[in-house]
């Protein structure tokens, strides 16, 4: 009976299905976890008000959102410095986000559930996301215009939203001006300075030439001053309004509107409002620049840097890998030498990535970059241009890292093409190279895409080598902007993988950073998925086009 079942092959089917099931559970579990943890961060959670009484001490008033709750053995809590009655074995504790880091210096804190009073959800609880010092939690009192209260009570709420929107609008304008206009002028002024230096180096710094450059510089300066004036005017307008609110501790504070990013009244907001708020926060996360040592604001530069780096890497690695594979498989006489090369290539794939980083830093950045600087960027010295970590070197290092994958996949594809197709082409009078480029390479294109897919997945997730060759915690400029030559491959850049590491481990505020780590991780995974799906779509189209018996 059992023997028959065994013979029927059913156990193997179960084994295979089980393996697939485990894979699926792991993948969905992983993505599900980071999705839930990361995405819930942007939801405007209810704000609770309660009293907290440590036995033998004055009760204090708390206002904040519950971030996490857990039930732990009493000993754990005692070790953390809380007083818990001797006979109690387990304790429920809550992590509250209280905000107001500027006032209380503790924006996250654990509280013992037993010591808490009743939880209420006050209607006029106000949560402000601020440019500095993190969130503010309090009760709205009034809206001030030029220091005068203009609205109180319900009226104040209506005014609040409108005026926050106005201030945000103005700030966006100021940021635009700073980033693009002023940034552009600074860039051009630097170019003028370099031009002057170049002339001096070549000994062509005639008074006329210098005068001309100085004139350019002065013109730029005048332009800058004009823009600066405009910017100051906008800033002044931004400073017009302020919010007066009372904290849970009873302090009345005035917060300038120019400091506010977003305002919410979570206990009263309807579901629609909350969804609006969510979308708004999420958009900021994806499309904005980071603030507050990366623990707040968006991750746009990191997304941009990651994608751009992967694209540049693909542009480098694909032709090199494909050509190398074609040579190895089609042209080189197969023998001990090609075997040796294959062994080397395969071993290259096994080298730890940090070693590539070290190589990239030593060879690409210092040696090649230094040589390029000496040749072409003398005017900028002693400031290095290519002689320091940057996007191009990072892409090149990753290209080297992923080269074996592309070579192996391409060779695999080439070797699968039936001999009859080659013979068919040659028999029609095609030369070897015509056969390769017109027939073999198109047929092997899906395999090349497979190699590229694997390379992209590997490169997008790599962090260690990048820290050495170009990724930084905070890049002042994107590697692409409106200033000629638009693509600045010499610039250092931000990267999602490193961003996760930086926010998660280097952040001064671990609790505030935690959800961002998940959200960033989710973004990274999604980007890799999108890049891969694009490549897979291309591959499938190629497959469809070059469908042959061998597939």
């Amino acid at each position, binding site marked *: 009976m059992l023997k028959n079942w065994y013979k029927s092959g059913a156990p193997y089917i179960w084994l295979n299905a089980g393996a697939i099931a485990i894979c699926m559970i792991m993948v969905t579990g992983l993505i599900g976890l980071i999705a839930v943890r990361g995405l819930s961060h942007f939801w405007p959670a209810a704000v609770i008000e309660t009293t907290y009484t440590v036995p033998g001490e004055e009760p204090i008033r708390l206002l904040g959102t519950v971030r996490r709750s857990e039930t732990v053995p009493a000993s754990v809590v005692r070790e953390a410095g809380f007083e818990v009655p001797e006979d109690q074995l387990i304790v429920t504790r809550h992590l509250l986000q209280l905000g107001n880091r500027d006032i209380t210096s503790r924006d996250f804190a654990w509280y013992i559930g037993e010591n808490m009073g009743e939880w209420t959800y006050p209607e006029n609880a106000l949560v402000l996301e601020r440019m500095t010092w993190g969130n503010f939690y309090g009760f709205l009192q009034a809206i001030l215009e030029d220091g005068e209260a203009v609205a109180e009570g319900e009226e104040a709420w209506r005014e609040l939203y409108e005026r926050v929107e106005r201030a945000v609008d103005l700030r966006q304008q100021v940021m635009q001006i700073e980033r693009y206009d002023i940034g552009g002028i600074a860039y051009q002024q630097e170019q003028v300075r370099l031009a002057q230096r170049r002339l001096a180096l070549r000994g062509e710094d005639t008074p006329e030439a210098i005068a001309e450059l100085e004139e350019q510089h002065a013109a730029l300066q005048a332009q800058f001053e004009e823009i600066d004036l405009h910017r100051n005017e906008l800033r002044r307008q931004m400073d017009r309004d302020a919010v007066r609110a009372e904290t849970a501790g009873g302090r009345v504070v005035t917060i300038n509107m120019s400091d506010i990013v977003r305002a919410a009244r979570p206990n009263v907001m309807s579901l629609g409002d909350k969804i609006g708020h969510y979308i708004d926060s999420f958009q900021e996360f994806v499309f904005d620049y980071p603030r507050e040592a990366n623990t707040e604001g968006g991750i746009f530069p990191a997304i941009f840097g990651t994608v751009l780096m992967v694209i540049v890497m693909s542009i480098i690695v694909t032709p090199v890998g494909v050509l190398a594979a074609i040579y190895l498989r089609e042209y080189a006489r197969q023998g001990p030498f090609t075997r040796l090369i294959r062994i080397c290539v395969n071993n290259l794939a096994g080298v730890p990535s940090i070693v590539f980083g070290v190589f990239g830093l030593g060879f690409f950045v210092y040696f090649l970059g230094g040589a390029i600087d000496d040749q072409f960027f003398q005017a900028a010295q002693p400031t290095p241009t290519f002689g320091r970590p940057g996007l191009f070197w990072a892409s090149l290092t990753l290209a080297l890292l992923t080269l074996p994958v592309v070579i192996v996949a391409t060779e695999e594809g080439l070797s699968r093409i039936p001999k*009859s197709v080659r013979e*068919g082409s*040659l028999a029609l009078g095609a030369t070897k190279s015509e056969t390769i480029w017109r027939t073999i390479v198109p047929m092997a294109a899906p395999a090349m895409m497979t190699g590229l897919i694997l390379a992209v997945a590997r490169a997008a997730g790599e962090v260690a080598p990048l820290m050495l060759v170009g990724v930084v915690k905070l890049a002042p400029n994107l590697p692409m902007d409106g200033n000629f030559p638009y693509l600045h491959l010499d610039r250092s850049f931000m990267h999602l993988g490193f961003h996760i590491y930086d926010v998660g481990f280097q952040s001064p505020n671990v609790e505030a950073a935690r959800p961002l780590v998940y959200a960033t991780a989710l973004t990274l995974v999604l980007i890799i998925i999108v890049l891969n799906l694009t490549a897979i779509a291309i591959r499938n189209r190629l497959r469809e086009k070059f469908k042959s018996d061998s597939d």
Partner: protein
Amino acid sequence: MTNMTKPATDRTSATMENNAPEAGRTSERHVPSLAPEFRRDAPKGATTAAGDLNQETPCFQINALNLRYGSNHALSDVSMMIPHQRITAFIGPSGCGKSSLLRCLNRMNDLIDIAQISGEILLDGQDIYSKKVDVPELRRRVGMVFQKPNPFPKSIYENVAYGLRIQGVRRKSVIDEAVERSLRKAALWDEVKDRLKAPAMELSGGQQQRLVIARAIAIEPEVILLDEPCSALDPIATAKVEELMMELKENYTLVIVTHNMQQAARVGDYCAFMYMGELIEYDTAEVMFQTPGKKQTEDYITGRFG
């Protein structure tokens, strides 16, 4: 006889032109392709009357050919003449070297590293193994159809256009015309004319084999080598391909390898029996199948072999 030799000499003059530079050749090539229209009835009776080998115009002259794959002596001392505008069939048991001999004729064996060749093969009097020979050019003159249909994973149209594109022909009208002409000659046009852009891989085996033949004749070769072209086909497809071969011999020299005695008798003008890498007997198909000179040949033909 006079009727028969006329087109042959025509052809020879054309092939002499073929050795001239590209431009002259392509213009010349279109002439025989148009010719069959008004030539059709005249030489029909003549071409069936293959008589004496010595009276034929030589296309290939093979002298003392030896082929070794490493230590395996695949062809030993083969000497024969393959006549113009005839169908010459190679028969013999598997592994006797028929394919090897065929592949020598358009230097396909160059692809095999271990193949070593000695002796000479003259095509229209010129040694095809001499250093001066441009091998792709030789293969344009000597086309080949393989045992298993091997269309490229491209559209039907592109398969037929492939050889022309390789030669650098860009004009769409020229290619269109050549594709239609070749597909018509290969008796495939009516079946595929509405779906020229469809992948060639979607055709049936017999259609694929005719497509491959169309692909070979699109570049107007002088010789077509066919290595067991019908072995993967059903009887109807086989009949179509055979009919096709009969028509093609009006313009081309055909050399065919086959395992099918009836086929060799039906389509072959001349027939060569090979055994263990040696050419045992070579004569007109009639003689070979009715009064073979050697006992080995008779045994093989009558099925009393080995």
